[in-house]
């Protein structure tokens, strides 16, 4: 039986904790991926995801935004993560430069052009994701936010603006600049895109 977010929230508000576990399972990957873009470390991202959900559970009693649960959850996750980043700086220690010897490395262009013939595609694409997310984690907040919210999560400018607490027009402008920055940085590190 499939419940909508709103139905689950109503059940949670009546004291049904299991419904919150359903919501967690529904969005945990999205939220942890989103946070991963900030930390560049997936284990930390998972811990912060748990914290974000527990924070959301605490505030669900006062939640009233009909049908906008996910942007609201992103807002909480972003706040929790930025607070944590303020307390502890997560540095990406290793260099992002592509090792010259690693000719087997998957290039972004392979992914974009669906060159999936390689037998090690899955493993290599995860390695590539690590590289891309670490570059994103090093970008300034606005650029990182728009890339993760709009391009990775596929959010509209309006919803992204709500999460970032800014103007939708600004989201559009930042997104253009962020894409260019990511493109240039990947190329400068030796990755063909």
């Amino acid at each position, binding site marked *: 039986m499939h419940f909508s977010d709103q139905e689950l929230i109503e059940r949670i508000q009546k004291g049904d904790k299991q419904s919150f576990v359903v919501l*967690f399972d529904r969005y*945990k990957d999205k939220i942890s991926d989103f946070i991963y873009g900030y930390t560049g470390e997936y284990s930390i991202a998972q811990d912060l995801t748990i914290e974000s959900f527990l924070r959301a559970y605490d505030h669900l009693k006062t939640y009233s935004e009909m049908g906008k649960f996910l942007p609201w959850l992103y807002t909480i996750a972003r706040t929790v993560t930025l607070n944590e980043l303020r307390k502890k700086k997560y540095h990406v220690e290793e260099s992002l430069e592509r090792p010259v010897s690693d000719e087997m490395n998957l290039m972004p262009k392979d992914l974009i052009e669906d060159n999936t013939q390689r037998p090690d595609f*899955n493993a290599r*694409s995860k390695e590539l994701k690590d590289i891309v997310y670490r570059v994103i984690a090093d970008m300034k907040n606005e650029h990182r936010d728009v890339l993760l919210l709009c391009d990775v999560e596929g959010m509209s400018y309006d919803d992204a603006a709500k999460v970032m607490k800014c103007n939708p027009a600004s989201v559009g402008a930042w997104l253009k600049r962020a894409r260019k920055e990511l493109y240039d940085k990947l190329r400068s590190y030796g990755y063909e895109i």
Partner: protein
Amino acid sequence: MNNGKFDKEKRVEVLLKKLPKNQFEEDKRQVFVSRLYNLEKIKEKRRIERSKTVSLSLAACLALFIVGAHFLMPRNPVLRNINGTVKIYRANRNEWIFADRDNIKIAKRDIVKTFEKGAVDIVLPNRYKVRLKNKTEIKLASVTSFIGTGKTIYELEKGRSFTYYEKSVRKNTFSIKTSQAMVSVIGTAFMTEALPTINKTWVGVLNGTVTVTGLTSLPHEKGNIVYVKPGEKTIVRTGSKPTVPVRLLESELMDLEELFRIGEKQQVALLISGGKNRVRELLSVTPLYISSDETELSRQVKEIVISFSEAIKQGSKDMHRDSIKKLEELVRTNPNPKYEVQFLLFIGAYYNYLGDHERSISTFRKVVDDYPRSRLASIAQCAIGYIYEHHIKDKKKALEAYYLVKAKYPYSVEMEEALSGIARLSQ
């Protein structure tokens, strides 16, 4: 490959969409579920820890506040050695009360008043003692904090106050103010007398230095602040500058010697009156008061007193001599100006009682020579004259002794006795 602007953006957009999704680990999911179901317990635990921390912080703040307040609160002096009638005006209650016990605290703006036969010490332990003589009125105008910062100001409305300032504290000033002058301490013992009926303030200094400022319309005018040094005095009249400090008279110095005894409990005292017959009282062997405090001195003296009693019971002159020698030995081995004069007078009187007049005279002479400024020196000098006149029958030496009383102690109680002796012997 087209590297145009549009393509760049598009390619990044596609890349990000095609990146693989991470899978949330099952272990972490279990952590979440467990935490969710124990959320209340965890919250309760955190709440208790927080309340403990808050309580501890509050307790620490409270302790700091109390300690801070204690140090910043005014430190009030107390009344001690109350003699006769002493009254306190409680400014906060607007009423006069009788000071009937020691250690009554004096607050800011309170007034202490002594009457015809009253005297009292205002004491701030380890800082100062202010002795008020009879018919004196003083107001505590300003008080220092516990750590001693601030100004201590007493306003002497009338009468005499002796101040013995023990300890100078940084950022603290001590002053006695009268209608005519402000007397400020630089570490000292001094006496201030306010005479409102004749618009005059008298200041005499025994130790250290005080500054005396005339309360004129031009306080910083040249000559309005004078430094009064030990053994000097100055006088300030209403609206005038203080007079140039001059040497204190002998009689004034004797008055000031009382400063040495402020706040001290007398351990040894001759029980003689203040009347004109006190030389005769002394020579008939005056009782000697010994404090009941358990000091080494009082224990030794008590032993000697027992031997005196034994001598009286036995009627033995030798035992009397032994006892008096023991007392002489005690004085010799425990020299202390606080009670040596009293002991010497007692010994002198006792030798006279035993008929050893020469020793009696030499003992009294020791008092006169060693303690010329003592208030009891005049008794000793007069006693010498009395012994020469009545026991040794040496008119010439008796006259010499009486004349010395007249010359050295003209304001003493013994003056009358000496003059009548001179009159008798001159016939």
